[in-house]
């Protein structure tokens, strides 16, 4: 009986532990997969953001859950029609990414996210906010490149920004293309640390490049 109890305890503990991490991995994978289709229904981004936030608060020390929660909020701001409401959502994303940052300092992906949040704030009133947020967007991208030169996302974000900047302001395809191309080269070599680590943006870069042909 003793043996049985011991056996039972070991099985239950290991099963429990692996169930815990399987559960985390499964939940993350499910929700990450759902981000790809969320653009058809922007409101679902909020649902996903909430899902990630629940995972993050339950797990407490998984920076990726906070990261994706922030990503969903930021993506949601890009779809918002009422610009005056963007600041509140972007502030929520900042609160989440700050938690990720404290769990995983000096991370290139987190710097990218901060740059994206600054873009959200800038969209509220680009003419008036350019001076403040333009600087922020750029310095976070610089930091992201410094923190991980192999990460394709900082160049993707910079290239995308350039492509949508009018030519008179030094943007357009001509300046965006080399940056996007360099990003694509990095995407081709990029291997995410795990199934749930950030691995998004390649298709979008290809699309932007195709647009610039």
């Amino acid at each position, binding site marked *: *009986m003793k043996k*049985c109890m011991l*056996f*039972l305890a070991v*099985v*239950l503990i290991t*099963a429990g532990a692996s169930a815990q991490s399987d*559960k985390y991995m499964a*939940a993350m994978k499910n929700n990450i997969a759902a981000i790809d289709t969320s653009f058809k229904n922007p*409101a679902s981004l*909020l*649902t996903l*953001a*909430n*899902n990630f*936030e*629940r*995972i993050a*608060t*339950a797990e407490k020390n998984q920076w990726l859950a906070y990261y994706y929660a922030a990503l969903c909020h930021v993506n949601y701001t890009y779809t918002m029609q009422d*610009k*005056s409401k963007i*600041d*509140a*959502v972007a*502030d*929520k994303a900042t609160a989440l990414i700050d938690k990720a940052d404290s769990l995983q300092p*000096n991370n290139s992906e987190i710097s990218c996210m901060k740059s994206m949040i600054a873009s959200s704030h800038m969209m*509220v*009133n680009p003419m*008036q*906010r350019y*001076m*403040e947020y333009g*600087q922020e967007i*750029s*310095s976070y991208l*610089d*930091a992201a490149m*410094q*923190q991980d030169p192999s990460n394709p996302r900082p160049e993707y974000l910079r290239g995308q920004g350039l492509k949508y*900047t*009018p030519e*008179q*302001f*030094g*943007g357009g395809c001509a*300046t965006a293309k080399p940056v996007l191309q360099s990003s694509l080269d990095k995407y081709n070599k990029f291997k995410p640390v795990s199934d749930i680590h950030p691995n998004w943006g390649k298709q979008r870069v290809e699309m932007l490049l195709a647009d610039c042909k």
Partner: protein
Amino acid sequence: MKKLICLAALFIGLKANAQTKISGRIADVKGKPLGGVSVALKNTYDGSTTDSLGNYSFTSTETGKKVLEATLVGFRSFEQEITLGSASLHINISLKELVTELKAVVISAGAFVASDKNKGAVLNAIDIVTTPSANGDVTSAFKTLPGTQQVGESEGLFVRGGSATESKIYMDGNLVNNFFYSSTPGIATRGRFNPFLFRGTIFSSGGYSALYGQALSSVLVLESKDLPDRTEADLGISVVGIGGGIQKLAKDKKSSWGVSYNYTNLLLGFAINKQKQDFFQIPVYHQGDANFRIKTKSGGMIKYYGYISGNKTGFRNPDIDSASLKDAFSIENLNTYQNINWKDNLGNGWRIYAGISYSTNKDDIVNELQDAANQKQVITTPVFYAFKNFKVNNRAQYAQARVVAEKKLNGLNVIRFGSDYFYSNEKSTYTLYDGTEFPGTVKDNLVSVFAESDIYITNSLAAKLGGRLEHSELISKWNVAPRVSLAYKFPDNSQASVAYGLFYQNPDRRILPATANLDYSRAAHYILQYQKLTSQRTFRVEAFYKKYSDLYKTSVNIAGRESAASNNGFGDAKGVELFWRDKKTFKNVDYWISYSYLDTKRDFLNYPYAITPSFAANHTAALVIKKFVLPWKTGFNLSYNFATGRPYYRIAYDNAQTKYVITDAGKTINYNSMSFSVNYLPNLGKTNPKVFAVWVLGINNVLGQNQVFNYNYSNDGSRKVPVTPPSKRFIFIGCFLSFGIDRTQDAINNNL
């Protein structure tokens, strides 16, 4: 058997628990369903998000006591302990809206708030420098807003029937004396400060906060910038002078310092723009300033700003009483201003704002009667000619200390209270043609205490209640000034406000020392306002009534100058004002229109009875249009200012009746002025440009329309001469360069 039990136990142990279904509906306190609410079982993965009808539903395998949490941006979080078993749970939740600055009603009656952080932004630094009629002058830009008069013959803001002395200007809470360069007869001087020093401005045309006093009509509150975005140097060259400066931001972005120097010489400007005066001393200005800003550990800021300027000018006008004589006026001015202030979070919702300022001003004015060969003439018959030779030497010192404490209560409710102390010592010596000196010193110690609270009853209804107590040594009496305003926000985000307040002011130093004991002059403001603000459009309409009492009356003192003699003056002003700004309708076009109707009469100074003062027009309007053409990297700005004619009077002392009488009166022609400017930004959008250049071409009064501000009368009243601008047009050309020193890379290296 044992093994069987063992397996069974294992099986049961691994078998998932029974599921509980949790569902419900989430709405706000009014019952409106809320979508996007995050519903979660705390510390588990389980939860859901409400749909657009506010419904949520999820299942959980958890058992026992858990906390159900509902959260939504802008609402107070909801938590409830629930017990999970096998039975389904149906939980409806009502969320309470947080009172937040973004959503809440803004108490705005009488005030135009302008800053980049504020939703109600009306004019910011860029707006000021791109308003062509303003020529980069802070207060001139406010002349395109309703409530202000198009007064061109003297400086200052004439607001809602008030004279320029009734408008006061505050920088970071401290009163700025001599905000404008010293007055010159018939020529409006500019403000001393560069618009880019300021992050935000609040222009209150009435009903302003209890934090400010000593202004019967209006206050302009300027808030200086915090830390600059980056290290930058700039250089400006124009037809009026050259200037340059540097702002250095520390690597840790926690402190900065800056210095700048400007040299203005109007030699070239006057060569291009012929002046009607004969300048024997071309206006020359030297101006230097320095600042530092330090961020404190608790998120506060210590800021210093120091300024010194010296300038001189001198010009001749034909003498009004004679055919061949001339009046020569010259002034030398030296002015210093120092302001240090500290704002900080003290924790527990307390904030403190403290500041001290010190300033000095020195004016040396010489006026001479000259002949055709520019030689001084002292003619004693008739004696009034002799009085045209005089000197005025002013020496003034001002010091101020101010502390305001602010406590944030729940929500947006705030109480503020504080005190300020103001010391002034103004020495003035008036020297007659024969050398007789009339020295006069006016000293004052002005102490005030004030308190104010912002009370948010709901997100839609707010009140600001305040009061101010002042004691001036000069008057040696206390005054009590209550201030009240209420604002209500409608469901469509438009809002209505009402405001009431009492305002007191000491006599202007130009009519001091007084010949009798005086009381404070007083104004009561009643304001009704409706406004609708979106990020791209502003509409507001405001009606006001202003009652003046105890205004200062003057009589001629022994030196032959007007000085305050009693508080028997009175008056009133009423009007309606409209403002519309739209950045949306036309692409890349920003325009605003303001209109003011004013009906005012007053009896003050030497007026024989209540009349419409010569600084008040019935109808005033302004239109400003700005269009930026991206492909050309060029901005085109146009402004048109209009006002109906203003009254003018010849007021003279009648010896027979022993009182002042009006011997002649009239109305000036309507005022029309169209100004135009072009800004060209060749480096716009270059990635990391080393130099950022702005080229400016501005033309004031493009159409050369005739403008008459007032009339001057000869001594016997037989002749009158119109007061007109010094030149028909003014053409300005300049280039402003900034050199951004990008230290992003350094910042990253230091932080890693």
